[in-house]
């Protein structure tokens, strides 16, 4: 039956479209935005979104990455509020003197709950993480 055959093709194309949109979520945050979710989710807070661009306008990389000891790794610094209040990491500036203090919880803790630690729009995210996602989806499909 010709009509039936055609319907199958349409179905396949639509399934492909659904798969495409399901695997690739639409997030277009600013390049370099870092989501940090080491502890936040577990402790009932929204994950932190660190806007690199905003800080880059005000400070050179050296200030945070050499002087304050931030490693070049998302989530690699294991920052928690105790360290910040102690004047380490973000707390070196976010102390009410150089920048606003820690009472503005939800200006940092502003991410969508459940968002994993990542550097947004990084090539690593686009290539490695997404390929891993695709492979996982492929394996799931093969397992069915």
């Amino acid at each position, binding site marked *: 039956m010709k009509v039936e055959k055609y319907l199958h093709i349409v179905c396949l194309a639509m399934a492909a479209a659904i*798969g495409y949109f399901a695997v690739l979520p*639409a997030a277009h945050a600013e390049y370099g935005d870092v989501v940090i979710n080491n502890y936040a989710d577990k402790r009932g807070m929204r994950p932190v979104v660190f806007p690199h661009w905003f800080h880059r306008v005000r400070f050179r*990389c050296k200030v945070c990455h050499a002087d304050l000891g931030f490693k070049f790794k998302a989530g690699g610094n294991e920052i928690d509020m105790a360290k910040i209040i102690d004047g380490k990491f973000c707390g070196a500036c976010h102390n009410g003197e150089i920048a606003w203090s820690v009472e503005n919880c939800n200006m940092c803790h502003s991410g969508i709950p459940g968002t994993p630690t990542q550097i947004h729009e*990084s*090539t690593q995210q686009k290539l490695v993480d997404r390929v891993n996602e695709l492979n996982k989806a492929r394996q799931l499909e093969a397992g069915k």
Partner: protein
Amino acid sequence: MNKLIATLLLLGISGAVVAAEKTAKGSTADAPSAGISAPPSATQTGVGPFNRLLKKPKQLNLPPMEDGIHDPANEGTAMLQPPAEVLADWQPRRTAGNGVNWVEALRQGKINPRYERTDPDAVPIVMDLNIHRPVRSAMPDVIFPHKQHTEWLDCSNCHPAIFIPQKGANQISMSAILLGQKCGVCHGKVAFPITLTECKRCHSKEKDTPYKDPVPTAAAAKTTARP
């Protein structure tokens, strides 16, 4: 007959999902054509998703309320400055990354970020030394400018952990960079990313003698020949 009913059911569900997608995106295309014209996913075709994944973003500098990472239900999100307020009129615009050329912005004096946390007048220790890295392919050679990098960074950021400060000691490849190593520790995360529009920012020195593919010898051809 059962098959036909199942097919129609599936079609109905797919149609509903595609229609929902359409409403969410505010597209004017009708549902069936949107379904057919969408690129097939890599899971369907088995094609390597490499190039497809590195395409440039459609929109740059979205405000936090719409960027898909910030929670619009969070009060603090509305208080954050949208990047376009600051970055949108920096010229020349780029098509990748933040849509701006940070080094150029510094040179033009659009920004004067602090070099010391508490001292607005501290002057960076800039080293002007270009490193010429020959490239064994048809790509132009790489000129690494220390000047632009030391305007932002400290020597200890790169040396010796990422780059051994010795000629010929660092093997660098585009694969390593794309995977976040070597130059990729910053480029592709925060500094300008690896896209087809940015290649020549690093690969900037045309070769003195035009590149020629090495002619394979009989022995080499034998070892690389496919069965």
